[in-house]
């Protein structure tokens, strides 16, 4: 359970070991250029998209499309979007899918991970094989489509929520973490008469906050990002999640539907609205991710890569 292997203890300044030769300026320069380019390749598009979404018609016309240097802030694109219409509805549906889906998937995964963490329990080997096999064999597309539609889930949010409600990878990560908890802790709780449910909620879960946060992020992101399942299972366009709407505006070339805007009001430029939809799709991920990112190594690697 050495969680600190990537982080140096605080206070000790990292120092080049004495036997290592001093760095060559060429090597250092190449490294700096490479890493700056990489960081820029992520931050620059985000910047351009954010700035364009907040630009006025004049700024966009002057720049010829996308805006790199901001001139003033114009929130009319966002106002138009939030006045109602397809994007607002899609954001609600995606939020609903993400919240319900993540809660359900985390519950199912944590329960299964705990249930599979004790090697001497009844049916352990069979159950473990049962849960791990889908890791090697994916559910095939066509029969999966027939099963979901046959259950009558088409055009409901459950078609997006239920099929991915347990991911074997996440199960393996959580289970790995549970098995790393010193068995004395769990055993003593059980000797004191705590049931398995109680041991899980009062002993194990408080220790597993980091791994739960990371796996929760994985689930939340995958529910927020759901696109293909929506293409398969959602035909009604008033049930579209946000990624389907984003695709229809940016990739399929449909004009943004801004039916909620007051008739006769001057419409904000299409470019700004498109980019505002991108910003609204990215925003939840960028907002949540930095808080959970520091747990990645601690939470995931210990669970997933033992040995």
């Amino acid at each position, binding site marked *: 359970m050495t969680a600190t292997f990537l982080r140096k203890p605080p206070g000790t300044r990292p120092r080049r070991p004495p036997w290592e030769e001093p760095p060559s300026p060429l090597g250092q320069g190449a490294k700096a250029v490479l890493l700056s380019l990489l960081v820029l390749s992520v931050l620059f598009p985000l910047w351009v998209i954010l700035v364009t979404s907040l630009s006025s018609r004049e700024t966009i016309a002057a720049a010829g499309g996308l805006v790199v240097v901001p001139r003033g802030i114009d929130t009319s694109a966002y106002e138009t979007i939030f006045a109602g219409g397809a994007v607002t509805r899609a954001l609600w549906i995606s939020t609903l899918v993400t919240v319900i889906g993540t809660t359900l998937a985390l519950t199912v995964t944590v329960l299964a991970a705990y249930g599979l963490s004790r090697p001497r329990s009844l049916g352990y080997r069979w159950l473990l094989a049962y849960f791990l096999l889908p890791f090697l064999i994916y559910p095939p597309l066509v029969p999966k489509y027939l099963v979901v539609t046959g259950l009558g889930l088409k055009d409901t949010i459950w078609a997006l929520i239920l099929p991915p409600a347990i991911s074997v990878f996440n199960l393996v990560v959580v289970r790995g973490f549970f098995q790393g908890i010193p068995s004395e802790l769990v055993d003593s709780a059980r000797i004191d008469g705590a049931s398995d449910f109680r041991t899980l909620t009062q002993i194990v879960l408080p220790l597993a906050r980091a791994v739960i946060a990371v796996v929760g992020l994985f689930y939340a992101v995958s529910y927020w*990002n759901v696109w293909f399942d929506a293409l398969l299972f959602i035909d009604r366009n008033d049930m579209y999640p946000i990624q389907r709407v984003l695709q229809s505006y940016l*990739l399929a070339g449909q004009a943004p539907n801004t039916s909620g805007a007051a008739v006769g009001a001057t419409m904000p430029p299409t470019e700004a609205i498109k980019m505002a939809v991108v910003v609204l799709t990215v925003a939840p991920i960028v907002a949540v991710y930095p808080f959970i990112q520091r747990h990645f190594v601690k939470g995931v690697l210990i669970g997933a890569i033992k040995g």
Partner: protein
Amino acid sequence: MTVREVTAEAGSDQTRPGGVAPRRRRLPLRTRLRRDWQLLAMVAPGFVILLIFSYLPILGNVIAFQDYNPYVGSNPLDAFVQSNWIGFGQFQLLFADPAFWHAFRNTLAITAFQLVFFFPLPILLAIVLHSLLSSRLRGFIQTVVYLPHFFSWVLVVSFFVAMFGGAGLLAQTMREAGMEPWNVMTNPDTFIILVTAEAVWKDVGWGTIVFLAALSTIDQNLYEAAAADGAGRWRRLWHITLPGLRPVIVLLLILRLGDALSVGFEQFLLQRDAVGRQASEVLDTFVYHFSIATGNYGYGAAAGLFKAAVGLCLILAANKVAHMLGERGIYSRS
């Protein structure tokens, strides 16, 4: 990785040293049930979800041997019961279909291309990141480069359209400079480079995590001893760092080979209309278009089953090769 750990555990139950140890006293089923019923109850929800959404579809693969007609019954199960069995008919049609082989070749070409131009990049980036002394700087760079991994493919492609598309920033700048803008998003000839660039942008940072963890487990004394013996920077990289990463590299290669016939389904489906079928049709999009999009379910299921069977063979074969080379692979029969 954990498959191995699991099989090792499962194996240890059976092997008793020397075979003289007394058989472990088995409690009667009822006692074990009373002791473990809560664990079983915990497993139940996941069990049901996998049963319905993984195992049932896997069994449903049998429609690949049918002339499945969704309209003969009131629901898919009824339609399944009433459809005619035609044996390997769908497969015969499939193997005679030039469009299928075209998708197959495209898939393999893209896998091979990405194996060369994508696979090594996270390793290199991890080595560079690991060499940074300032943990703060490294943390910042990691935060930024991991981020695109969490973007959906719709977003990633949208970003590329915004930057490199016909109305994108690059075309805009080139027009201003009086040049003929190129539109890489709709050019079938460079499509393979485009999809690889997208994949790299999305996942090169994320891919370093595993390698960074492996790098931090390499014994620092090895480097010191090598330096004392006069090995330079590059020799240490070659003789210490890369061998230290070897098990992880082999593991990921096996997994990649097992997935050789899957190359980012959503990514290709999203860009299929922009560049056309010729360049962008891969096996997964083929399955989708020839089943759900056109209603020919049995045919699509046959293509999907073929792909799954080849994939399983590939991963077992790659694992076998890894064993012969003395690596541990994804699972071992220990």
